[in-house]
């Protein structure tokens, strides 16, 4: 073998949920200025795409970093089941005290997936819409947004 290669595997999952960007720490006027139409009191929703990237040794026996037969049900239980067709502000306990921006959703999903036993979680990337995506690699400094 020549140079050590690094392999990662990325799987895309989907959920649909509603949210509202609003912080009780700010005045109504500040909320309006900060969050604009995302602060509509009735909420609104997105079809979120969650890209989960894992890395680790490729097992010679299986040719895999981790078996999707383990990753899929893990993500399903930890993220899709609790998030899909929900109102994130009310139905995900962690968002009772924080605003469910996609930055915060990235962190929360990363936290939930970090315990995946079969490989190391490298990145969670979320497309909130096809124009906006966010990614988090576990370092609190590195939530990166991109808007197109």
């Amino acid at each position, binding site marked *: 073998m020549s140079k050590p290669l690094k*392999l990662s595997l990325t799987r895309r999952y989907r959920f649909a949920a509603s949210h509202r960007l609003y912080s009780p720490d700010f005045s109504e006027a500040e909320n309006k200025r900060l969050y604009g139409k995302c602060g509509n009191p009735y909420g609104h929703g997105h079809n979120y795409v969650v890209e989960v990237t894992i890395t*680790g040794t490729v097992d010679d026996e299986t*040719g895999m970093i981790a078996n999707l*037969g383990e990753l899929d049900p893990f993500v399903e239980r930890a993220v899709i089941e609790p998030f899909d067709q929900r109102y994130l502000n009310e139905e995900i306990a962690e968002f009772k005290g924080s605003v469910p921006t996609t930055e915060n959703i990235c962190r929360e999903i990363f936290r939930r997936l970090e315990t995946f036993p079969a490989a190391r979680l490298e990145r969670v990337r979320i497309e909130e819409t096809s124009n906006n995506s966010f990614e988090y690699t576990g370092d609190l400094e590195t939530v990166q947004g991109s808007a197109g």
Partner: protein
Amino acid sequence: MIRVTRKLEFSAAHFYHNPNLSAEENRRIFGKCNNPHGHGHNYVLEVTVAGEPDPATGMVLDLKELKDILQREVADRMDHRHLNYEVPELAGKIPTCENIAAVIWRLLEPRITKGKLDRVRVYESADLFADCTVEPNGAGGRA
């Protein structure tokens, strides 16, 4: 530094089977991918080369050259082939997208003379892909 990415699509058949394991183990680990008749994918390969653009041409490398390299090294070997039987570089390996990405890296790396191979990404479907890069510090994942 600039990164240049070229895409190539190829279609191939494969199945997952490890002859060192029992039939039952194979079914348990690989599920329906273990079907001995095989199945196929439209693979999408994305090859990224990194480098400084040549001041005279404004290019990191000639994309036509990269296209020809991808045709020779990847498409001619893998397009409309059965990966388990017809690609010697994959012999003895389970043709997962991790292993395909690592094999393609090793085929391409010595052929890229302008710029450096930065990443090989192999999509098996729109929702599943493997990335092969060089380990920055020699730790972590490998193939």
